[in-house]
């Protein structure tokens, strides 16, 4: 499993899935930014979970992982070499989606009421230890409930269509799922976005670092230059999304090929504010995320910005 090390100049980048968070990579690829910056991409596996992303990094199968910050924190606990090498999304892009027949306060009711309405319900999440679980744990915690006992969390895996299916068939009452699941549910008419950090529903969770790139210092030592070039291409993609919404919208609709156009439309509107403005990791976004992770019990100890974030991308 050390294909990465044997091929200098080639960067193997693994990502969790083809969800919205990794759209910038697609943009950079389509617009030729990687080529421009002299990055040759090798393996591009979709690994599904953070644990597998970490395993692939450990085995040397990939050089850079594109996932969520939670995965980087987890990896850091057992591997001190872990380095966050870039930011992709600086918004918590997980929503709570309720079934259309959900019987509770309206989506504009105060947050606490809405969270209390979720008590005792079946809530679908991607899996244990994920950002989707974290959001529920965090919200319940905020209103003095314990997600483990006051609701039933069901692991549905990382495929949005399963989640939508489970919601529309009534097997779960609500979902905590990453975008564009909520948009999709609304477009299909099977559910509504009920709580959305990205929408600003949770004041304490404004602009955290969520989608992130990470690697290890060992890899950085060998391929630091390639990673820098990679980040430059990502920067250009992020800029492209911010500055050319129309071209970006077109790319998004091909990226999310099977998704309902209505949902893509809805996503398009929120994308520019959601994505990081550059691959630089801002300390405030990092700290917001750390607080969130501590409160939602995803981590026990606060990681240190200076040691976890690669010096090249520190502010």
């Amino acid at each position, binding site marked *: 499993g050390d294909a990465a090390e044997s091929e200098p100049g080639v960067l193997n980048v693994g990502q969790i899935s083809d969800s919205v968070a990794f759209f910038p990579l697609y943009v950079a690829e389509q617009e030729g930014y990687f080529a421009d910056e002299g990055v040759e991409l090798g393996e591009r596996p979709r690994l599904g979970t953070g644990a597998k992303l970490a395993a692939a990094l450990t085995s040397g199968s990939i050089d850079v992982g594109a996932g969520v910050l939670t995965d980087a924190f987890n990896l850091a*606990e057992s591997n001190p070499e872990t380095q966050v090498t870039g930011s992709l999304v600086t918004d918590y892009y997980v929503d709570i989606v309720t079934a259309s027949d959900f019987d509770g306060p309206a989506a504009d009711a105060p947050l606490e009421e809405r969270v209390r309405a979720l008590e005792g319900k079946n809530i679908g999440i991607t*899996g244990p230890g994920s950002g989707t679980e974290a959001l529920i744990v965090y919200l319940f915690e905020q209103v003095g409930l314990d997600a483990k006992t006051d609701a039933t969390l069901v692991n549905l895996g990382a495929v949005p269509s*399963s989640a939508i299916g489970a919601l529309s068939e009534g097997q779960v009452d609500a979902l905590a799922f990453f975008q564009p699941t909520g948009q999709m549910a609304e477009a299909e008419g099977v559910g509504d976005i009920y709580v959305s950090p990205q929408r600003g529903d949770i004041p304490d969770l404004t602009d955290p670092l969520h989608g992130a790139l990470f690697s290890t210092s060992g890899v950085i030592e060998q391929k630091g230059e390639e990673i820098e070039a990679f980040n430059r291409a990502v920067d250009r993609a992020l800029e492209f999304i911010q500055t050319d919404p129309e071209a970006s919208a077109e790319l998004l609709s091909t990226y999310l090929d099977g998704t309902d156009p209505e949902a893509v439309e809805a996503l398009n509107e929120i994308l520019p504010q959601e994505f990081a403005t550059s691959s630089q990791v801002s300390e405030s976004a990092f700290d917001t995320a750390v607080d969130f992770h501590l409160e939602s019990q995803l981590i026990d100890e606060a990681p240190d910005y200076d040691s976890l974030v690669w010096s090249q991308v520190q502010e």
Partner: protein
Amino acid sequence: MTTGSVSDTHAHNGLSTSGPVKETRRRSWWHRNRRTTLVWGLRAGVVLVFLLLWQLAGRVAVNPMFVSSPVSVWEQLRDWILDGTLSTHTWITIQEVVLGYVIGAVTGALAGFVLASVRLTYDVFEPMMMALYSIPKVALAPLFIVWFGIGIDMKVILAAVSVFFLVFLNTAAGVRDVDRGLIDAVRLMGGSNKDITLKVVLPASMSGLITGLKVSIPYALIGAVIGELVASNRGLGYLINDSAAQFNTAGVFAAVVVLTALAMVLNTLVGALASRANRWKPLDAE
């Protein structure tokens, strides 16, 4: 070895015969059980060696995170036993596995007996079964969730379908190998199809059936656990998933250890059935 008295072997009636004598020859406990003892001793030895190597591997591994060690697995197990986690989750998985196994095995064996006797049906449907079973069930998880929900049913179904197929094909192969002479003998006695199935085909194809029952044990467990990985908040599959997400390799292995223990219990049960069914067979050593 003790030699009993020579039993009475005079012909009881009619014919004059010339045969051997039968003697009671009671064997000591050791003589009767030495093989079993040896086998279990060796098994224990192999397991011990394995554990030792594993413990050592943790020391030399590049990244001990992915190796864990028997000691940490044991600690994890002990914690789970003490706080009740283990019994809750294991009990759920046991229910799914046993239900799935029994349903799959019974329907598989029945289908094997019925379809294999009607050759044409078998030939028509066999490749379709094969095709159906080649569908990776994990990949269809989204559809499974929609079709069968996320309750225990779904996991039982996943366990049962894997078992069904393996038991079915093995039984069918066993049935088709049955000596025609024996079937003809029953037909000559006026036996119905039911008699043929129960009195000849079933005992004669026991070996195939039992192989089917054996090879399907792992898949019953895997089916249930995959169901739990896909959509669940309980069961050993959930424990694995949860531990994996927390990078708790010892937890993953602890759950796996419980799974393999389950497999061995099922295997022992099937083994007992097999040795009952095979009593008539000559022993290896003669």
